[in-house]
């Protein structure tokens, strides 16, 4: 099945099209798209429908439909003021 992954960060955002099987885990997909986007997998998460996806779960378990649009985003955004 075909999925799209978007990273809506930066003025021109990338969109990756990936072919997966429903048994692929979210973690496996994340590894693959992180290579395409050139980002460190440890700092980001895949998100769909406004929630963070569990990396051990599969595509079918996460309920992502054909042509679903996932987002690749940082786990969190932290501001600090300790020098």
């Amino acid at each position, binding site marked *: 099945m075909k999925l799209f992954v*978007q*990273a*809506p*960060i*930066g*003025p*021109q*955002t*990338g*969109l990756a*099209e990936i072919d997966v099987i429903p048994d692929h885990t979210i973690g496996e997909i994340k590894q693959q798209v992180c*290579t*395409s*986007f*050139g*980002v*460190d997998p440890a*700092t980001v*998460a895949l*998100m*769909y*429908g*406004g*929630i*963070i996806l569990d990396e051990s779960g599969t595509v079918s378990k996460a309920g992502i439909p054909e042509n679903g*649009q996932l*987002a690749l*985003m*940082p*786990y*969190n*955004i*932290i*501001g*600090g*003021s*300790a*020098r």
Partner: protein
Amino acid sequence: MFGVSSVSYIAISGQVMEKVVKEARERPDEQVVGVLLGGQSGGTIVIEDAATGAAESNSTHATLTGDSIAKIADDIINKRIRGSIVGWYHSHVRGGVFMSETDVETQLKLQQFSPLVTAMVVDSQTGKSGFFRADSKTKGAIPIPPQNVRSEVAAPTPVTPSFGQAMYPQAPPPTPPMPVSTRTILVAVLLITLAVTGGIIALAYYRGPGTATTLAITHTPPKGPFRIGNTITFDANVTGVDLKNVTLAYRIIGREPTGGLIVGDLIKVPMLLKAAEKDTYSYTIPSSEISGLYVNYYISAFDGSNNAVRSDVYNLEVGDFDWALDRTDEQIVTRTIAGEVRLDLLPINGFNLPVTIRVGSPGPPAGVSIRTPSPVVPGQEQVVLRITATGDAEIARRYDVTIEAVYSPGGAVQFIRPITLVLTVTDFGFDIQPRYNEVKPDHEAPPYSLTVTVHDGFRAPNAFKVSITGLEKLEDKISWRLVLVEYKIDDQGTAKFNYNLVFKVESAAKKDLYLFTVKISAATTGGTISHDISSIQLKII
């Protein structure tokens, strides 16, 4: 991994600046955090909105949670919010405006996606703010000089409904004229109308220097409707002893492109006695001198004793036409995609005759054609211009084209009203180097470098799609990957993406020659545009 970016200008809308600073100041005991949304225009990052969500906050830290980020991402993907994340903001309760180690770490995390993302830090005590990026090598903060940051109050409603580059001023930043809202123009027109009426009333109550006199003028204003291209004849019945002369004084009151009034010079002409009619003096203003909005006039008569008498001052409405107040319209033309521009012609004082639309001088750049409609009736129709650009059309940035509305009442006389259309002809280009590679098993092929050049004005709201045909024929000993290696934008607004397509060949791979076609496509307003390069060869030796 990214090249050094030349985009170092930031334009933040006044409302967003105010919103973020207010949020920080209202919570002086804990930090606030959120993201900045917007886009890019030439060399400027444009911040149009800010968003936040559930956060864990105390006086030294604020964390925007993954769930909040996921909701914002979902809103962007489903277009409930415009633009994309171009930065993030947070406040400091103590210590002022600087980048802490945590801040630099977060900034670098975001810069992985784009080197153009910026960090905005607000001091919640003073409301002062600053913008930063970070250096991935030194882990140091790079402040963006305050003179490169503009905060401006945007028009209440953007003129262009879609999110696009042309809406924003370009860097370097001279303060651009702010768009005048429709409301302002209406008010201006109303005030000017009042002012003119006032002026005419004042004149009407003024009488000439004469004292007691037998001079008298009887005048009935000519009956309309009047319009450009017609003559207007004035008749007056004037009686008096020792009548010296009868004068028509008139001026044309026109309209400026900005909506103001142009008051023409007062012209005084002698009115001549019509031989057949006793005491009737007459003058005809030639058609070449008549134009809208008004002919403003009075008639005066003088006798040999320097007595004078003057008629009331009248205002005749003259039918005319013009383009609606906004005289320029910016239009993006994407090569090979037909576009339309709608311009409004404005009938003045009931003008309703056909007007021809034509392309004036300067015309469009090479390769661009503009089809004008057959004669239009002002007031009934918008003027729809169809613009097409061939695949070879010259990429042109802000090219002025004159469009003329022409009314020909007959003979050689023509009334021409020009409007300037600002065209940007855009496209994206695509190249792959090299076209041929050979590789031995157990090696990686040298990368094929894919370069996508996106010219200023090109809009691809859903990004670019790379599709490669031929990969399905690869045997399973060969794997491939496509990696974005560089993203750069120059000060002309031209963006360059560089991808590397790399093949890795395992030891048992067979000798073979593979052929690929790489296609880059982007959906833009009016259709999808794609460029492809075929016969990319990979030889396993």
